[in-house]
C-alpha cells in the first residue's frame, strides 16, 4: 500500500446534460455530498485551490461513471502540509427521491500517503427536498482511526425562475473533533463546466475555488 495513488478524489457531480451547478460532491466547494452519482458513461475532471491561513493547496480528481449509478475516481490532495494524499473512491446511488422518500447513496474511500497505513472511510448519504427547490443532504462519516462524524448540507438554486445557473450551498457538521460551518456557491459557466467557491470554518478558516468539467 506504500504506492497508494498520489491522487485524491474530491468532488464529482453531474446529471442530465452535463456537470451542473445543482449537483454536489465533497470539496466542490463544501465537504458534503449529495446522494447521486455522475451519469453512466460520464468522465469528469475536477480541480481546485484551497487557501488555509497562508498555505495554498491544490487538489484534482478524475472520475468515471462506469455503470449506472456507480462511479469510481482517483485523485490527489496536496492540501495538507507537505504530505500529498492520494485517494481512490467508489460511489453508488442506491435510490433516487421518490415522492416523499429521500435519495440514498454511499461512498467508500481509501486514501493515504507513501509510508503510512491507508485510511479507509465510509460515507452514508441521504438527500431530501426541504421545500420546493431547496434540499438538505445528510452525510454520516465513518473513518478508520477517527470518531464518526456528520454533515448537514443545504442547497438552494438562486435566481429561479429567471436564471438557472447557480446554486447556493451551506453546511454545518462535526467531523474529526471539529465543528464545521461553511457556505458557498456553484455556478455553471458553460454546458460542461462549473465554477465553485466556498468558505469554511473548522479548525481554521479555509477558502476554496474550484472547477469541474464533464466530458
Amino acid at each position: 500500500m506504500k504506492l497508494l495513488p498520489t491522487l485524491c478524489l474530491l468532488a464529482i457531480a453531474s446529471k442530465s446534460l452535463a456537470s451542473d451547478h445543482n449537483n454536489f460532491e465533497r470539496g466542490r466547494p463544501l465537504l458534503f455530498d449529495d446522494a447521486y452519482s455522475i451519469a453512466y458513461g460520464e468522465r469528469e475532471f475536477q480541480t481546485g485551490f484551497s487557501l488555509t491561513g497562508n498555505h495554498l493547496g491544490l487538489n484534482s480528481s478524475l472520475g468515471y461513471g462506469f455503470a449506472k449509478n456507480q462511479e469510481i475516481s482517483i485523485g490527489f490532495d496536496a492540501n495538507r502540509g507537505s504530505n500529498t494524499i492520494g485517494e481512490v473512491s467508489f460511489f453508488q446511488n442506491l435510490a433516487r427521491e421518490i415522492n416523499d422518500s429521500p435519495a440514498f447513496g454511499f461512498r467508500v474511500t481509501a486514501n493515504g500517503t507513501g509510508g503510512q497505513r491507508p485510511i479507509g472511510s465510509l460515507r452514508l448519504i441521504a438527500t431530501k427536498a426541504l421545500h420546493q427547490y431547496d434540499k438538505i443532504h445528510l452525510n454520516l462519516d465513518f473513518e478508520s482511526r477517527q470518531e464518526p462524524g456528520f454533515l448537514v448540507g443545504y442547497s438552494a438554486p438562486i435566481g429561479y425562475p429567471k436564471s438557472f445557473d447557480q446554486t447556493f450551498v451551506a453546511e454545518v457538521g462535526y467531523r474529526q473533533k471539529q465543528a464545521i460551518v461553511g457556505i458557498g456557491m456553484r455556478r455553471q459557466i458553460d454546458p460542461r463546466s462549473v465554477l465553485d467557491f466556498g468558505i469554511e470554518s473548522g479548525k481554521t478558516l479555509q477558502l476554496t475555488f474550484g472547477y469541474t468539467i464533464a466530458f
Partner: protein
Amino acid sequence: MPFAIAFALITLTQSSQLPVMPPNMPSWLNNSTADTLFYKPASYNWDINRMPAFAKDMYATGVGHAMAYEAMVTGGAPELETKTFNIIDWVLKHQPTKPVDEGAISPTFMRKYGSLEKVFDWAHLLHFQVIDVFMHPGWTDSQKEAEVDRLWKNYSSQPYAISGLPMNMEFLDGFSYSGKFRKENPKVNGLFWGYHWLQTVNHDMLYRVPVQDQVAQYALIGNRYRETELYRIDRDFMPMTAEMSPRFAKRFPQIAASFDNLHMLHDNVNDILAQSNLSESQKQDQVKIAIYRVLDSTHKDEDPGDAVPKSLHDHRHPFGIPGMGMMKGSDEDSMFMAGMGWMDMSKCSHCSISLPDSGPWGATVSAEGWTMSVRCLMCARDMSAETPGRAIIRASTEDPNRLLVLISDEEGNWTSNIKEVVFLENYGDHPECNDWSRAFTSRAAFDKYTKANPEFKDVKPLNLTDWGKLNHGKPVTYRKIDKPNPYGMKMEGHGGGK
C-alpha cells in the same frame, strides 16, 4: 368477430375508459435508482453553441416544459394560462445562454415521475447530439450521417429508448383523457407545440447544409419561431418531424418517428396531469402506461408497415414518408397538414406530379411555418412567390454533395449560399419539370448538362436575379385534395364586410 365490430369495440374502449396496466411492463419503470445516462462522448458535443441564437432558443424550451410540469404537480394548474404562462414567456424572451438542468426546475415532478424523466432525458440527449453532429465543422456529410446512425444505435441500446417505428397518432391521441390539456390551456399548449416546431424544423436547416450556411437560415426560422409559432393556438395537432423536416425524415425515418413518438408522449403526459378526477397514484400509473406504449421494447420485432390498423401496433405510414405514422383521417396517399390542408406527400406540393424516386431532383420550400417538397427549382420559386413572407429553398444541384440554400426577403428577392449558381429553366410540361428546371453550382456544370442533353443546347443560363424574377404561376396540373379538416376545426373567416 367481424373486423368492423372488433374495431368499434376497440375504439369505444379506447375513448371511454382509462387504459389498463399491461402485464408485460418493463421492470425498470419501477427502479428506485437514478440511472442517469451521459451523452456519447465526441468532439462535436455542444457545437450547437456555434449558433448562439438557436442554442438559446433550444435551451429555453427545456425551461418551459419543466416549469409547466412543476406547476401542474404543485397545485399550480389553475394558473397555468396566466402566471405560469407569463413566467415561461419571460424566459422565452430572456433565454438562458446555457443548457438548464430541468430536474432542478421541476424537482417535485421529478420525484413523482422519475421514470418519465429517464425517457425524456435520454431522448433529449439524442435530439441535441443529432444537432451537434450536423453543426460540427470539418466533417463531410457522409461522416455526419454515419455518426447520426451510430447515435441512433447508441440511443436504442438503452431500455428508455422510444420506438423508431411510425405509430398511429390518432390512436395515441385517442384516450379518455386525450385533448384535455390543450383545450383547457391553449396558450401553454401553444408554447409546447411551438417548441416541437423548433425541435423538428431545425433538422432540415442543418442536414447536409454546410456549417457556414446554417446561420443565415436561422435568422428567418428563429424570427418565425419567436414571433409566431410559439403563440399559435390554432394548430389542429402537434408539428410532426416529417412535416417540418422532410429531407431529414426521409434519411433518418427512425429518428424522425421517435421524435414524434416522444412529443406524443409529452402530450399524453400533459393530458394525464390535467385530469383533476384522477388520484396521484392513478396519474402515475397512467404515465407509466403512456411510456410503455412508445417504448422500443414494446414494439420489438415489429417493422414499419406492420399494421393492426388504428391500434398500438399500427406502424403504417403515408406513402413516401416512412418516418411518420398515420394521422387522424389519413390514408397511405394523403394526410392533413397544418397550414396546408390535405396533401399527398408523394407528390410535388406545387404541381401535384409525383416526386421522383431517385435524385438529384427538386427541393423543399419553407415558408409561413411549413416545409413542403417540390419537384424542381421552378416549382420551389413559384410556390415561394405565391406565399406571403420570407422563404427558404433547399435544392439539389448537379453535385450531390452541394445543397443549394436560397433565402428570400419579404419581396421575394433571393440570396444564395453558392455565389456562382446558375439556373436552367426551359419552361415546358410539368411532368418533366425536374429535367428542364435545375440549379448548377457553376457555369461549367450547366454547360456539361446542356451538352449531355441536346434538347437544352440553345438555352441560356440564368443568374439568380433573373431567375428570381420569373414566375409561371400555379400550374394547371395542381390538384388540391378537397376533403374536410379531420380535426373538425374550421376556419370561420375573419368577419364580414358590413
